[in-house]
């Protein structure tokens, strides 16, 4: 038998190609590690910052049941943040460093959270559209090549699909309600539709990381493929609700068995990415403020733990 001398990198790629999960202690190329840390921490930051636009309505939720569901949902997002930070830690990143990168603006988070939540319908739109888009992005990640990330995503996706249903249900209740409520729902859709389409990222032709990420099976579909899927999934739902999707170019294409739709305003997209969205500064400031104002609490907890340890050591020694 002829033995093949594979380089570490070739062996690694062979495992990926065979759909064998990569685990924390396995050898991996530096670039793979870096790409994953970037992506997972970005995802964790999105969960953390994503608490803010919905948190904005917890105190104003219109019924006790809605208040309870919304609070539980935002709490789930905090939980997702925790799983994801832990997954990134298995690659050697520290939570402190990741947070420092978020606070300095070095690390990004999903731009969608830089849009304001202005009415109760936005709680419906965020659940229905934003979580809907997130699910499309995330379901393939349950099969992503890095084990801890894939496993974290299985849990995240289960909860996200519940979030999406509750968002749709808010929209449905509004659409079946008074004319004012229906108008509220339509106005929400008008504001959230395009930013949601932007969540899939730049066009494939302008997405430099896609090819390598596909090869490493960190990513399994391109941005444009997912965007198309999303439109095809959402348009019938909007029709069911009796809402109008704010795109004059939207049209069913029999040949491709999908919708043709208008072009995203890429200038707006890049502006928000660069920090010029309505809420970029507020969101980041809110995070930085919470972190800075919490510093003394974290210090106290550490100091107390240390005192306790010393007392216990003294007891043992005595």
């Amino acid at each position, binding site marked *: 038998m002829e033995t093949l001398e594979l380089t570490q990198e070739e062996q690694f790629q062979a495992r990926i190609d065979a759909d064998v999960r990569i685990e924390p202690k396995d050898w991996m190329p530096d670039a793979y590690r870096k790409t994953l840390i970037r992506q997972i921490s970005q995802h964790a930051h999105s969960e953390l910052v994503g608490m*803010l636009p919905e*948190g904005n309505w*917890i105190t*104003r939720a219109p019924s*006790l049941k809605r208040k309870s569901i919304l609070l539980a949902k935002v709490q789930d997002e905090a939980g997702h943040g*925790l799983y994801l930070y832990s997954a990134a830690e298995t690659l050697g990143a520290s939570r402190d460093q990741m947070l420092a990168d978020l606070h300095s603006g070095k690390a990004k988070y999903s731009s969608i959270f830089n849009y304001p939540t202005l009415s109760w319908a936005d709680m419906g739109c965020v659940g229905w559209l934003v979580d809907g888009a997130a699910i499309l992005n995330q379901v393939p990640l349950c099969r992503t090549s890095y084990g801890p990330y894939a496993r974290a995503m299985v849990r995240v996706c289960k909860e996200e699909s519940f979030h999406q249903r509750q968002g749709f249900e808010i929209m449905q209740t509004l659409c079946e309600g008074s004319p004012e409520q229906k108008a509220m729902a339509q106005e929400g859709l008008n504001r959230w539709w395009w930013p949601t389409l932007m969540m899939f990222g730049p066009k494939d032709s302008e997405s430099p990381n896609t090819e390598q990420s596909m090869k490493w099976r960190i990513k399994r579909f391109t941005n444009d493929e997912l965007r198309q899927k999303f439109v095809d999934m959402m348009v019938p739902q909007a029709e069911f609700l009796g809402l109008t999707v704010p795109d004059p170019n939207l049209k069913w294409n029999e040949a491709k068995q999908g919708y043709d739709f208008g072009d995203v305003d890429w200038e707006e997209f890049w502006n928000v990415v660069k920090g010029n969205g309505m809420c970029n500064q507020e969101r980041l400031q809110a995070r930085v403020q919470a972190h800075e104002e919490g510093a*003394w*609490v974290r210090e106290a907890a550490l*100091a*107390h733990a240390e005192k306790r340890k010393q007392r216990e050591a003294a007891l043992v020694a005595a």
Partner: protein
Amino acid sequence: MTDSPMPTQATPAPTPETQANLFAFVLQLADTSLILAHRLSEWCGHGPILEQDLAMANIALDLLGEARSYYQYAAELEGKGRTEDDLAYLRSAVEYRNPLLVEQPNGDFAGTIVRQFIYDCFHYHLLLQLQSGPDAQLAAIAEKSVKEAAYHIKWSAEWVIRLGDGTEESRRRVEKAIENLWRYSGELTTPSATEKALQAAGFVPDYAAIQQQIDAHVTRVFEEATLPVPQGVFMQKGGKDGRHSEHLGYLLAELQYLQRTYPGLQW
């Protein structure tokens, strides 16, 4: 449970007066849980560390669930067709019956912890008694809630200890919070006219006995936290009779905004 001061024998059907008092008392419990849950929920997304953000949302959710159980029961006791949301969203500040403590603003994390600990001490020891009380529905809600309250008091007590026996700054802050908030602790165990009547009828436990248990709990925790237990503080009251601090009006304006702006709709 052998130390229960509550009568456990079968009780006669409550008089209309007791029924009305019971409605008022259950509503007071509901308002109290809701207002504190609302305050805690204001932290959501802004906590000092992600794990504590989660913990506060957890406690808020427990209290919200407890509030809903009480409101639903209150609506049933009243029998006028009002719903949990009518009771929570369509009553003005003077009709709210929560004690002053729970409507106090969050302040810093130390303020939130001290407010929580003071309330948890009362809440936990009250629920322990209510779960063996003569009203089956109230007892059932208490039995479910006391398990949650046991976790709440463990959480807040641990933080009182960490902050008291942590750094100089945390100690200064927790002492300040105690100074600000202790004056609202007395109202919890000072019975209102409604509570007095229900105590006489055997539906509400003796608050003097609960106060003793609270004192023992506080002493134990403060000792570990190396904090002095406040003495001789003048106690504020009024919330349970609908005389609130200025803070409640703003809280309700926010809480009730949608229901008040668009009356009579489903959400």
